[in-house]
């Protein structure tokens, strides 16, 4: 101890120059000219909406997937000082000057470039030579599709980055000496990166399961090691399981948890926390509230009404009550405010406030139009098996008001429980018909402004989130007069969030329409099926210059894809033959090599399988870029198989293999060069050149003839 104190403080640094070079090449290939084209490229149109919502600090519940990816993109926007004012409605639209294109695309590109050294490290950690690792990094570097996907505001490169990092850090953990303290750090890093990967896209979950399986096998081996004492083996077992599962579980549960996501949004200074702080907790008679549907299918929305009536006759000839429309609207609006009214009493909160409890009967008054929430035995517009819900208007046609609703708190812990803001999940049960106020899931046609339909469901059973509502914004109303009340409603709950509400309202309306179009039809010109991905039978046109032939396509490096498929086939053959022969006690390769090959197979071929096969089960629209994570792992298999062949071949074939490797690498490079105009969008190619690039008939390359 003492001697160590006497030593001078020394930093010894070893720099792996290969790693540095590879990283530099990665950065160069991914970052070169990323603000070209200065236009919306493919799915940027989709992610851009979320980025704008985050940067404009508008409160919304992100149900399109896990939020971390969008947050990462929004962070890029934040760095670039983007104010969110851009209308993301069309692929190919020119960016206005306020959009910091460079910083928006920077983070995915950085993640994509860092994948290159990660590939190198991964192969090294698998126990293969540095030359092999270099080969893996080069193949990854020259993969056109990965470059394209990294260079825009898209999430795949971020996902791949986290996946690779998770695998590398797990292997580091596994390979480290058992007593080193750094080991634990690697384990923690594994957990954190797995969580991040899942946070970016749910597909990350499958790689996490793969790692979990690997860890389980390793632990089982550890338990079986009878040289270890019971205590230490149990200790290591617990250490491993606790670390990996707890970290990830926490993160996986996180995004679903209202509080977690709102905490993030509070940090963006526009979130739920700001809306809700200072609100009264207990809902009282006279409370002014917005009611949000607990269900977020098809999208999160608030109970809404507006000054428009149901059409007298629908397109199919059925009649309606012609009373005021009640809908569910996915955006903040002054028309989302309702007042909880004691039947036959005033509209203001008494002092002290009388809280509304489970089982109480209330009326719901629409704040802006003063209509009472009503339902009756008239078929709803889109779901004729359910009752229409309306704001009651007395047309003197012997259709009496039926506007009493019983409050039924679904998650109550006691009878007589008080209705609480945000926390209580409430069913509103109609007194006359015992129908339940419910989001039907379909949207209204043009006359209903394509908002979501709300119905009274008489055959409601069990717990369906579509029939449950909670109070999100809440205040005690003070004004009895309609005019005053309108003013009151227009004033925001706590602090002014939307100064220029009309602009935002329009802006959101536009976006929302776009989203509904996206949801409505799963057909897409460039959608493809998983089987087409292996052979790259399909491509995606990302961007086309409005005037010239310059264009960007998601097309992979054809040579690499073929080699990767070959490598997979060879690996499977090798594995099967070794496996069967070993079972008959014929040992072609030493035990250690077999274990190494096995581990490489689990990581690379397994990584490919878990990132690819699940797509066969999915019913959503699929695109070629969904295959990229799987491809990454598949590419890593090429050098692994080559090194294995090289080590276990007779000398004469070895020389031939050298030649093959060189030829392979150079053809990969050539193919990369050939397609790079489609990858970088420049230089512009002539129609003939483009036509010659159409290596497959099924590829869709567009060109103008002049």
């Amino acid at each position, binding site marked *: 101890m003492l001697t160590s104190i006497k030593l001078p403080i020394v930093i010894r640094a070893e720099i792996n120059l290969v790693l540095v070079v590879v990283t530099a090449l990665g950065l160069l290939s991914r970052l070169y000219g990323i603000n070209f084209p200065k236009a919306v490229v493919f799915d940027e149109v989709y992610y851009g909406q979320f980025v704008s919502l985050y940067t404009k600090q508008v409160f919304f519940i992100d149900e399109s997937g896990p939020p971390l990816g969008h947050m990462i993109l929004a962070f890029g926007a934040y760095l670039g000082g983007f104010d969110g004012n851009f209308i993301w409605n069309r692929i190919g639209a020119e960016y206005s000057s306020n959009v910091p294109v460079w910083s928006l695309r920077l983070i995915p590109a950085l993640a994509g470039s860092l994948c290159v050294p990660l590939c190198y490290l991964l192969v090294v950690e698998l126990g293969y030579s540095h030359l092999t690792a270099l080969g893996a990094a080069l193949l990854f570097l020259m993969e056109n599709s990965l470059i394209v996907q990294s260079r825009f505001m898209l999430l795949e490169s971020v996902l791949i980055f986290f996946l690779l990092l998770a695998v590398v850090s797990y292997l580091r953990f596994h390979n480290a000496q058992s007593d080193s303290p750094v080991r634990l750090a690697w384990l923690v890093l594994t957990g954190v990166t797995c969580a991040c990967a899942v946070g970016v896209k749910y597909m990350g979950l499958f790689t996490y399961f793969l790692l979990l399986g690997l860890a389980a096998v390793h632990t089982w081996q550890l*338990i*079986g090691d009878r040289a270890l004492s019971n205590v230490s083996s149990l200790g290591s077992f617990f250490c491993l399981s606790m670390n990996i599962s707890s970290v990830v579980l926490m993160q996986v549960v996180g995004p679903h948890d209202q509080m977690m996501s709102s905490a993030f949004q509070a940090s963006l200074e526009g979130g739920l926390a700001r809306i809700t702080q200072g609100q009264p907790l207990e809902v009282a008679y006279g409370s002014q509230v917005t009611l949000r549907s607990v269900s977020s299918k098809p999208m999160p929305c608030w109970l809404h009404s507006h000054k428009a009536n149901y059409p007298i006759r629908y397109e199919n000839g059925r009649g309606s009550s012609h009373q005021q429309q009640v809908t569910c609207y996915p955006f903040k609006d002054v028309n989302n405010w309702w007042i909880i009214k004691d039947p036959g009493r005033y509209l203001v909160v008494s002092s002290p406030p009388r809280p509304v409890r489970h089982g109480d009967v209330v009326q719901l008054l629409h704040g802006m139009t003063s209509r009472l929430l009503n339902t009756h035995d008239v078929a709803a517009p889109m*779901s004729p098996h359910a009752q229409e819900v309306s704001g009651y208007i007395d047309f003197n046609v012997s259709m009496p008001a039926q506007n009493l609703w019983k409050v039924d708190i679904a998650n109550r812990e006691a009878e007589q429980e008080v209705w609480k803001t945000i926390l209580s999940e409430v069913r509103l049960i109609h007194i006359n018909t015992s129908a339940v106020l419910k989001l039907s899931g379909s949207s209204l046609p043009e006359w209903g402004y394509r908002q979501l339909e709300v119905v009274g469901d008489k055959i409601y059973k069990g717990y369906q989130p579509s029939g449950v509502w909670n109070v999100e914004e809440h205040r005690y109303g003070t004004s009895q007069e309609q005019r005053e009340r309108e003013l009151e409603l227009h004033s925001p709950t706590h602090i002014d969030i939307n100064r220029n509400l009309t602009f935002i309202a329009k802006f959101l309306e536009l976006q929302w329409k776009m989203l509904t179009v996206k949801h409505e039809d799963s*057909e897409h010109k460039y959608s493809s099926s998983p089987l087409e991905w292996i052979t790259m039978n399909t491509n995606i046109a990302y961007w086309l210059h409005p005037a010239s032939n310059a264009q960007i396509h998601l097309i992979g490096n054809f040579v690499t894809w073929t080699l990767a498929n070959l490598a997979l086939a060879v690996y499977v053959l090798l594995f099967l033959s070794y496996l069967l022969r070993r079972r*008959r006690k014929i040992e072609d390769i030493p035990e250690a090599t077999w*274990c190494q090959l096995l581990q490489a197979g689990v990581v690379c071929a397994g990584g490919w399988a878990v990132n690819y096969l699940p797509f066969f089960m999915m019913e959503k629209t699929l695109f070629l870029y969904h295959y990229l994570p799987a491809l990454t792992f598949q590419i890593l298999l090429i050098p692994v198989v080559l090194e294995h062949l090289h080590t276990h071949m007779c000398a004469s074939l070895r020389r031939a293999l050298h030649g093959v490797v060189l030829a392979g690498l150079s053809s990969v490079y050539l193919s990369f060069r050939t397609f790079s105009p489609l990858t970088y969008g420049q230089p512009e190619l002539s129609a003939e050149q483009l036509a010659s690039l159409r290596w497959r008939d099924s590829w869709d390359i567009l060109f103008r003839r002049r």
Partner: protein
Amino acid sequence: SLHRPISNKECVAQYKDESSMLRSRRDKMNTGEQTQHDQGIYSPNNEAQSTVFFLLVVLLSFSTRLYKIMEPPHVCWDETHFGKMGSYYINRTFFFDVHPPLGKMLIGLAGYMTGYDGTYPFLKPGDKYEHHNYWGMRGFCASLGSCLPPFAYLTVLELSQSLTAALITAAVLAFDTGCITISQYILLDPILMFFIMGAVLSMVKFNRQRYRPFSAPWWFWLVLTGVNLSGALGVKFVGLFVILLVGLNTARDLWSLLGDLHLSLMDFGKHLLSRVFGLILLPLFLYVTIFAVHFVVLNKSGPGDGFFSSAFQSRLIGNNLHNASMPEYLAYGSVITVKNLRIAGGYLHSHWHLYPEGVGAKQQQVTAYLHKDYNNMWLVHRPNDSDAQSGEPDLVRHGDIIRLEHKETTRNLHSHLHEAPLTKKHFQVTGYGINGTGDPNDLWQVEVCGGQKGNLVKVLRSKVRFLHRATGCVLYSSGKTLPKWGWEQVEVTCSPYLKETPNSQWNIEDHINTKLPNISLSVLKPHFLEILLESHIVMIRGNSGLKPKDNEMNSKPWHWPINYQGLRFSGVNETEYRVYLLGNPVIWWLNLVSLGLYVVMVAAASLALRRGVQLDKRRIGRKHCRVLLEGGGLLLLGWLLHYVPFYTMGRILYYHHYFPAMLFSSMLTGITLDTLLQSADLWLRPPYSHWLLRGGQAMLFLAILDSFYMFHPLSYGMRGPLAHDPDSTMAGLKWMDSWEF
């Protein structure tokens, strides 16, 4: 080097471990006689005892299932489907169902043998049978259902060598109200479960013959396994899961044979080939035979015709394509019907009604219609109306521009840049013009799929696409049903996405042209394998098409093991005779607890083995571990295979889908509880442990019997007030709010 020595050492260690296990196994083989003797709780005395108990189980299970078999004397639940389909076999009319035919054929056969004449219509649940002979069909299903407890008894006896484990299993199954109810009616489930249990039993018996390969019993059980597999798959596709189970078991078996170095590769090859024969070729052959019988028996046109392709229909007596003759190549001036190639795609159809206000242009509707109708007829014209020609009419070729005129209304098939009624990204297709005069938007280019310019269009056999000249879109049937204004027919659109899908491919079905010579279409009669393939595609489409409707309560897989909600078989109101399919809750919850217990016990046992804890001071402990790991593992796998896949299914699910899995779960319960009670001596001293064992067993049987007594009205019928009424027979037994009795 970077690969650390630790992992390799482990790998080697594990490998050595395995090889030593192999060695010990080989030793065991060498002293086969002795091994047999070792396991022998099988003494002659025990053998007799188990036979007595077996007979008791048979008696109990037949009496519980056949009791009140005639009640209620009306159609219950899905009897309306399967009874009806049984009748179709007796009447030999063709129908379509999403399940393979064996189950319904057996039902039909049972009805036929017992004097049912196939005349009862099985219109809807609740219809009285009156004088019709329905007891045969119900009795047949109930007899097969009665075989389940005895089969389970034998299986568990084989797996665990413990009489008590087998008895627990048999009691659980014999006294489960759910199993009783589902066996008592004309349904596919008892037949399916009979084959599943049969396959499992013969597989287990086959495993026991491991030490006497290629002996007569070895072959017998192998072939029987194969027969049962084909039976299970022939009733419902759920049979695939048991095939998977047997497949995995066989793979494991082969793997251990391969590792046995005393067996030459030649011998291994024999083993492999015999299994390929018994478990793949034979079942496949039987399965195909079932379909052959199905197609031979059903040779008359019936309600299922429209689901199938034109070629298929030409087989059916009474169908207009049967023995028909028509011109071979499409020609100008012909009258044709055009059928979409999507399975159940319908004929291109139009009628006098217009699209309503607000749906595109207010022109005449064009739809796809599943039934044969005069309005499906279209006339083929040249773009410029000059059909008046003498002699042989010209033939239509790939790439030709044509105009299709609707025969009845004389409107042309037309499309334009209005959005389609339901598929908003597509264009609307209408009927336009009068007496065949229209505008350039009526022109369509004929394209034979896979054809080249100048190819002729073959009737029935060519896949044709119609490309709209003006917009470049392709005639498309989306499969979506139009609202009331469109008479709930199927939407037809013009799709701008030109990918070749069956939705955009059509064939010419009827073709009438007096000026051309007819050829007989009997040459088109499809090959048997084509029919087989087509009917499978139709079944699979039909299965995945069974999507839950919005307003229907869908049962979720997690509901099932906890017995969350049953199914109403008969009756709703107080006045009616009610039967409610619900498992005996005591038994089901016992099963659920046992599953958990099993996992805990296995984890403990395998950890102990792995850490080398001295369990094997006494032989019995090791034997328990083996039964738990091997026998229990097989059953757990069976349960998982029959349960987990339902989570991934998009189709509508019902409570009764759980019953095959429940069989496995019950067998696992037998093994788990028995092992738990038997190993009481691990923590209690001998006299007490013995008391605990006996006490526990007695408690278990009493609980099962008592709960059966309480819940038996669920199966054998309830009348009078519902359970919430204190006067009801079921008063106080509605333990969960979700139960509906």
